[in-house]
């Protein structure tokens, strides 16, 4: 499949999310937890991208930051060609962001190329091109206006199109609300229904869609099992007819026999509603089953990103290789060599220098602790961040 003629729905550029660590009487910031540290990836319309990694690798934080339930420390989040980063920032930070990311950069480029057209021609990124045109036509005020006018509508548009399904089916539904109120909340917030009766009809429809009886509409969450609650959570996200859904460990807390029901449901809904998924999970087998492309994360970085088949048939990063070999295969006669990684994942407060995996890597050399390997394309969109990519096969 060629990715060039597919539409980019979500583009994440150099995303960083640091959490301050405070200590002492005055709650001084003494360090930062670098949960997500400079990651970039694109999500194409209609695909499922899997984010895998162990606990503390920043996969959930990435999901929450994309959805703007957390504000990014740095970086850009573009949805459907629209830079949504400044939409949820405080006003001063939003203005500073626009100035830093666009205006000052465009000015520098203009000095370099001496011509506005040359600048636009030399910009690689479509989003950059779009905003450069606006800047050169309407000036800095015009760019600010373009990005920050009608901010409430833009925010609503963003919320309507970007939804989330949570891991814990128990704490993700307000225990004091009926199913109808839980699902109706989004419908009313976005004015998608005109009357209560219309909402009820729509909610009954949604419940049937996610495989629940429409008679359940007036029940409370505690009357349902874990799998059923997860379906309700899916219905809540689906109610807004979103384009992209972030599924944050959406099946991890479910019983084995229920997991496959929910996975199948997610696949069916994707076909029916042309959904795009960002599927966050620690279970490699589940990710392999559901995703089209997979990004492997380690300590806040993407170490490998490729088409599913390429990644699982030919993993290039030693961490990916080790991760795959560590997963027990439910077949007693399947023999394989297992790579046991030594030690624990280091703390994201003070990550190792150079390549973050070098402390546990079986093929680490001197250079690994000194120079950080960039994420480079090894062909066919198989991206990997390793100095010795493909040299470790287990």
């Amino acid at each position, binding site marked *: 499949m060629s990715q060039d003629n597919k539409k980019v729905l979500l583009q994440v550029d150099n995303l960083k999310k640091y959490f301050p660590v405070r200590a002492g009487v005055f709650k001084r910031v003494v360090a930062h937890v670098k949960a997500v540290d400079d990651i970039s990836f694109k999500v194409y319309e209609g695909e499922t991208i899997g984010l895998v990694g162990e606990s503390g690798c920043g996969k959930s934080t990435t999901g929450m930051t994309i959805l703007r*339930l957390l504000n990014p420390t740095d970086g850009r989040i573009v949805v459907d060609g629209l830079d949504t980063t400044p939409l949820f920032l405080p006003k001063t930070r939003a203005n500073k962001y626009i100035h830093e990311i666009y205006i000052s950069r465009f000015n520098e480029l203009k000095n370099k190329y001496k011509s506005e057209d040359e600048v636009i021609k030399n910009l690689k990124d479509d989003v950059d091109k779009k905003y450069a045109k606006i800047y050169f036509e309407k000036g800095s005020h015009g760019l600010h206006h373009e990005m920050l006018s009608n901010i409430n509508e833009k925010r609503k548009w963003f919320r*309507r199109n970007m939804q989330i399904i949570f891991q814990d089916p128990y704490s993700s539904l307000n225990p004091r609300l009926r199913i109808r109120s839980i699902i109706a*909340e*989004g419908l009313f*917030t976005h004015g998608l229904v005109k009357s209560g009766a219309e909402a009820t009809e729509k909610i009954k429809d949604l419940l049937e869609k996610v495989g629940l009886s429409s008679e359940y509409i007036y029940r409370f969450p505690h009357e349902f099992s874990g799998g059923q609650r997860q379906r309700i*959570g899916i219905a*809540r996200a689906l109610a807004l007819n979103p384009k992209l859904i972030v599924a944050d460990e959406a099946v991890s807390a479910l019983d084995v026999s229920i997991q496959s029901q929910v996975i199948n449901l997610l696949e069916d809904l994707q076909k029916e509603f042309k959904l795009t998924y960002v599927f966050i999970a620690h279970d490699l087998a589940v990710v392999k089953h559901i995703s089209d492309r997979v990004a492997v994360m380690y300590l806040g970085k993407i170490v490998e990103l490729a088409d599913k088949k390429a990644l699982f048939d030919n993993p290039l990063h030693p961490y990916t290789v080790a991760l795959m070999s560590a997963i027990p295969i439910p077949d007693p006669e399947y023999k394989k060599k297992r790579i046991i990684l030594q030690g624990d994942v280091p703390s994201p407060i003070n990550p190792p220098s150079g390549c973050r995996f070098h402390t546990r890597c079986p093929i680490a050399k001197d250079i690994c602790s000194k120079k950080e390997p960039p994420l480079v394309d090894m062909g066919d969109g198989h991206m990997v961040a390793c100095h010795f990519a493909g040299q470790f096969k287990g």
Partner: protein
Amino acid sequence: MNEEYKRALRKFYKNPSAMFGLILLIFFILIASFAPLLAPPQIPIDPEIENMESMINQLSETKDTSLIDDLTSSFSDYYDFTYGFYLDYADDVKKLEKALKNYQANKNEENLKKLIDELTPLTEDYVLDTSYLENIQNNLNDTKKFNSALKDLENGVKAFLSKATNAEKMKKELDEINSKNSSVDEFLPAAKKYFKDLKSNYIKDLHYDPYLMPIVTYENTPQPPSKEHPFGISNGRDIYYGVVWGTRTGFKIGLIVVITATIIGLFIGSISAYFGGWVDEVLMRITDIFMSIPFMLSAMVLTTVLGTGLDKVMIAMIVFGWMGSARLIRGNILQAKNDQYVLAAKALGVKDSKIIVKHILPNTIFPVLIQASMRIGSMVITAAVLSFLGVGAPQGYADWGSILNYARNWILGGTGGAFEYWYTIVYPGTAMVLFVLAWNLVGDALRDIFDPKLRG
């Protein structure tokens, strides 16, 4: 909700200690509401009035005309003694009122002089209190105090005149009686009406407070339970009366203090949690400071500053009693803020204010309310301790702590043995223990029912 509600009720019914608590509580509520029947307040009646009453009764029975003269003379005497005075000076006071109005309409030296001229003879005759005059003359230069003195005077005059009007009415009635003294049948209804008015005026002027335990004997040592005083007598006061009316005091203290303190706490705690940052920091440090002050000490200081009295005690307990709920609600909100359903609502684009009202508060407020219900009992203990230390309810107030305070000197018993005066402690003490127990049991049961973690 119906199913859940039924389940909660069933849980409550099945819990014997909760039922016990509930029954105790209902028992106390009944006692409090029927206190006037269980322990009728004994209004101290003037012997003169008692005498009149018995004469009227006798008259209606015997129709003995000779009693008519006795009664009319009693009425007249009583009238002269109680009301005559007001009528005698009514005109003078009216003149004063006019002078006062003149002055207020036109504040000049001349009018003031006239006002003082009118006032002086009245105070000299002790018709009005001398303080009225003094306050005006001493504060000629202080506008604020002067105005309040004028206001006082105005009220004093008004009160005097209303009494005079009443006296006039009584005089009319008395005249009517005097005109009808020829026949018993005509006299009796008029006399009865007059007596009724007279008695009600008397009770009104007495400012009788049923919460004051009546003094039944001037004997200082406690008296053991008897037929008239089933719980005995302590400090000359009827313990039974005190225990019954003390139930009302208990509810009053518990409910008012806890409700007010909880509202304050909820307000401060939720502001703190919602705004976060330095607002949170400042409010929580203030809370810390309040918490680090020893409660008893500060409550004692505050009641000493404000003066004794039940309302002052309650103010002190509110001022030093809101921190618990503030902290609890803050913690709960901070926790709920990160609950996934709150994040989900945020992801749906729901407004912050709506998230708080719809998602956060309903899930955080119950523990606070339950904790509050459990604190109602302990508030009564605190108030009792303050009373026991002598900074609580005023002397003679029907309050369990005060009754226990009386027992302080008798705790060790007397010549008759160590437990000679047991009743001075056992009855009010038992009432207090049961009251606290009732609230705690009910609060415990509520917590068990509403804790979502324990829900199936």
